């Protein structure tokens, strides 16, 4: 039975990926829809980012703003904002996260 549910979960996942690519005729998209779609990364990614930074594993707000991951998150924002470089944004966040854990513990 588990195999069956794994297969169904796989089909459902594939359909979320495939359905829009298969069904949408780009010629029929109006300009407003196309413009809204340019906001997709800005609309989807924060919903993944914010809970991972500001909430703990139980889904509760972290008790202090001085938490290493919140501080490191803001450092990564500053670095990314000025240097506009993907790898430096990630590394600055990770390295400062390690430093804050070291200092604050």
């Amino acid at each position, binding site marked *: 039975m*588990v*195999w069956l*549910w*794994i297969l*169904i*979960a*796989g089909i*459902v*996942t*594939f359909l*979320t*990926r*495939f359905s*829009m*690519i*298969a069904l*949408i005729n*780009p010629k029929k*998209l109006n300009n*407003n829809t*196309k*413009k*809204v*779609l340019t*906001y*997709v*990364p*800005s*609309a*989807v*990614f*924060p*919903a*993944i*980012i*914010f*809970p*991972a*930074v*500001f*909430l703990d594993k139980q*889904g509760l*707000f972290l008790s202090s703003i001085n938490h290493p*991951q919140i501080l*490191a*998150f803001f450092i*990564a*924002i500053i670095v*990314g*904002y000025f240097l*506009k470089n*993907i*790898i430096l*944004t*990630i590394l600055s*966040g*990770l390295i400062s*996260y*390690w430093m804050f*854990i070291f200092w604050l513990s």
Partner: protein
Amino acid sequence: MKNLTIFQKGFLDVLPLTIPVVPFGIIYGVIGTEMGFTPLMTFVMSFIIFAGSSQIAFAQLFFTGASPWLIISSVAAINSRHLLYGAVLSQHLSKLNLQWRILLSYLMTDQAFSVSSIYLKKNKNKFNCHFHLLGSGFTLWFLWQLSTLIGIFLGNIVPEQLGLTFTIPLTFLALIVSELRKIDHLIVILVSGTCSLIIYNFPYKIYIIVSSFVALTISYFFINHFKKNI
């Protein structure tokens, strides 16, 4: 440009974003086997579902004895963001035949979508621009399968103290950080993020797709009220 050159470009563009993929895949491999799935099942799930957070949700919910329909609904809700990615990519992939569209859909992930949608938009006149998505998608796919196997057979070889799961939000941040310069995008970002924090505990993990739609509604408002003259 040759197909292979564009494929390589996709590979190189997505490479920095794969930093969390390997530790996350290892964590999944460990969780899968700890939750009572056989090594084969854990691996095949990475192959059939190929979506990290859905696989972990599947394994955890299954372990707690949740009903299969609840598990499938959660998987659907977590993956519903792909609908939006598909809508964006459809503008560039409509000329391809069915086999290509099936293959590229299967390989579509957050990271591959993010780097390849930028490339496809800039190079929409190239007949073989979809090789970029093939390159980015395949790179992620390969690393995901490999790291699942590492997790299954070697256990958690990445020390938890390294906090590598924190690279997940950092990667997504890196993808939108340049948008913070634009006031409309900044507001959309803050609305989506704030909304996700408020409704995080809603059932079925619907916070991602609901927050996305709330934020897209705001963007629709911007387009209609502020950008008419631009």
